[in-house]
């Protein structure tokens, strides 16, 4: 498992930029893996970057007037329109540079939103922006629920999770639907780059962000961002939980580059999902039968993914 560190290409720990663009002093909860992911993303994108942010945890923790955590240009307009705002930024810069009113330079445009702002209310704006082919990096910070409004379920909430709008009750055991597969929806738009990442694998995450920024056209990165508050998990277990999500196959790390699938961490054998589920309070009500059901689904999805890797790399 740990051998993947040996395979590092461009990034080694000592080569990671020291400069922070999401500066200290933000108001995220203890153990928030999302803010860690965001910090790493901002680090990689660097100075020449403009960020459009959706309403959500990361907007709230980073921009309470009169303060800001941002050392790069940043804008928040609303909840569901991040990809459209980013489209406007990208198209505006393009026009101004072409017309000679701004000096020509490479400026990365990043749209960032949570799972609700991406897979639920923001999916239309995102689909439109990807279809139009804007050159931008869209990052979804997926903590699997509407966390800053009080842990309500989203379409990215996994089956069986107890949230305040999918509570584990006497009749219904939490979330009754399977997590919406947002990376696949994006890949179906035939954009040049789609990837999944997790801050528990920081170098992998940073490599993917770098690649996304360098690729011309829309790029989408789906980042599993462990939320100790919403997942009912001790803050010090956030990184561990992210690792388990990958090692159990619940959240496989992979890339889809110009249609070709590639597993970033190829696991010959998956750990039992129970190891991942049992450390989280949101799953504590699950019966062995339900855990089996989840195990089966995870295995099926993982097999499907491996087949895609095989198919798209043949010949």
């Amino acid at each position, binding site marked *: 498992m740990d051998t993947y560190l040996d395979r590092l290409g461009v990034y080694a720990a000592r080569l990671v930029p020291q400069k922070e663009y999401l500066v200290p002093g933000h108001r995220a909860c203890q153990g928030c893996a999302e803010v860690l992911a965001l910090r790493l993303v901002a680090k990689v994108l660097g100075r020449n970057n403009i960020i459009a942010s959706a309403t959500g945890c990361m907007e709230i923790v980073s921009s309470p007037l009169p303060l800001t955590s941002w050392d790069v240009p940043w804008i928040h307009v609303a909840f569901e329109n991040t990809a459209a705002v980013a489209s*406007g930024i990208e198209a505006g*810069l393009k026009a101004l540079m072409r017309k000679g009113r701004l000096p020509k330079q490479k400026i990365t445009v990043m749209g960032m939103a949570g799972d609700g702002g991406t897979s639920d209310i923001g999916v239309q704006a995102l689909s439109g922006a990807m279809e139009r082919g804007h050159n931008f990096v869209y990052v979804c910070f997926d903590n699997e629920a509407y966390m800053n409004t009080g842990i309500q379920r989203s379409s990215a909430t996994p089956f069986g999770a107890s949230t305040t709008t999918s509570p584990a009750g006497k009749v219904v055991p939490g979330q009754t639907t399977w997590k919406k597969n947002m990376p696949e929806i994006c890949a179906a738009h035939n954009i040049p780059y789609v990837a999944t990442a997790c801050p528990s694998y920081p170098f992998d995450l940073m490599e993917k962000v770098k690649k996304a920024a360098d690729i011309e056209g829309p790029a989408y990165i789906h980042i599993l961002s462990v939320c100790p508050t919403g997942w009912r998990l001790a803050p010090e277990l956030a990184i561990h939980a992210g690792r388990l999500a990958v090692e159990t196959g619940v959240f496989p790390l992979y890339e889809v580059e110009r249609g070709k699938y590639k597993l970033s961490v190829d696991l010959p054998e998956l750990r039992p999902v129970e190891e991942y589920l049992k450390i989280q309070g949101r799953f504590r009500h699950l019966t062995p039968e339900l855990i089996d059901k989840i195990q089966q689904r995870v295995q099926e999805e993982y097999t499907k993914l491996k087949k895609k890797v095989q198919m798209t790399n043949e010949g």
Partner: protein
Amino acid sequence: MATRIGMEVSIAAAEAVKQANVDIIAAYPITPQTHIVEHLSELVNNGELDAEFVPVESEHSAMSVCSGSSAVGARTFTCTSSQGLALMSEIVYAVSSLRLPMLMILANRSLNSPLSIWNDHSDVMSIRDCGWIQLFVDNGQEVYDHVFIGFRVAEDRNVLTPFIINLDGFVLTHVIEPIEMLDQKVVDRYLPPYQPLYRLHPDHPVSMGCFGPPVLFTEAKKAQDEAMNKTMPYIIQGWQEFGDLTGRYYHPVETHETEEAKIIVVTQGSLGETASIAIDTMREEDEPVGLVKIRLWRPFPFEEFEEAVKGAELLVVMDRAISYGGPGGPLAGEIRSALYHQERHPRVVNFIIGLGGRDVAPDDFAQMVQQAKARPGEWYEIYGVRE
């Protein structure tokens, strides 16, 4: 040299947007706005206008794209109608609070339901309080001229407020009128490229659209209200300088035959042109009638309006929208409150007319004036309903 050409009003509006040298147009098709953006996309695709045309997937995204492009300092245009405005209205409020200048032409059309593609003012009245500068035009020349005036005022560093031109759908957008086009040199003199005060750029990072805790929110909103009220002199200056260049002067309220008028008809938009014909006829019959057209809707021209109706005993106010369960139409409500502080103010009678494209003829104005004269008190009525 200025040239006078017969053309469809929508095309004239699009030609003005081209002459304003916009950088970005984002739009979604909706009747009766379509001819404006169709012509603009042609101009872009034929290389006659160097701009990005962003064909978005909804009006909500149109306004969102505009917020992003204005934030990086691009001259930004969009155009919508009716349901489209309703869909984008969330972001309409956001861009004015963010102080992002841009121009929107609103081809006025009724809102559902029943479905109607025809003209009234229920769309714009739904965003009355959105914090944009809003005005109404009467004809094609006025919309052409106000594209330049709108950008000039909105982008003024003392204003930095988005701008809406209300243009009646079909009865104006789709008619052919003589338009006096400006020489490009005149346009360039009047409307230099946009120089933003703040822009999203890595050289000077700023955060826009932060979240406002209770301790600061009210102050932010007071600042916005004050800023809106302070736009008036810059709007007037924009009109004055435009008039000096072209000979066409505009005012917050426009008057026709109001000298010694005891009765004043009040209108917004293209209704004013029809009303003025009716007024002329009534004047010939020695009826002391005048006409006041409210050009500027936000900020509301309180002083200019009071001055214009001074001496009148009866105001007959025409609304093209209903405030359901309210005191009548939105314009009449506004006018009553504008006059409330006066010890003796004219009686206000309110007619709601021309909904969903119902035609309004000069004779209708004469009838409404007679009805208002005959019946005492202040009231409102939906005119011409078949019972």
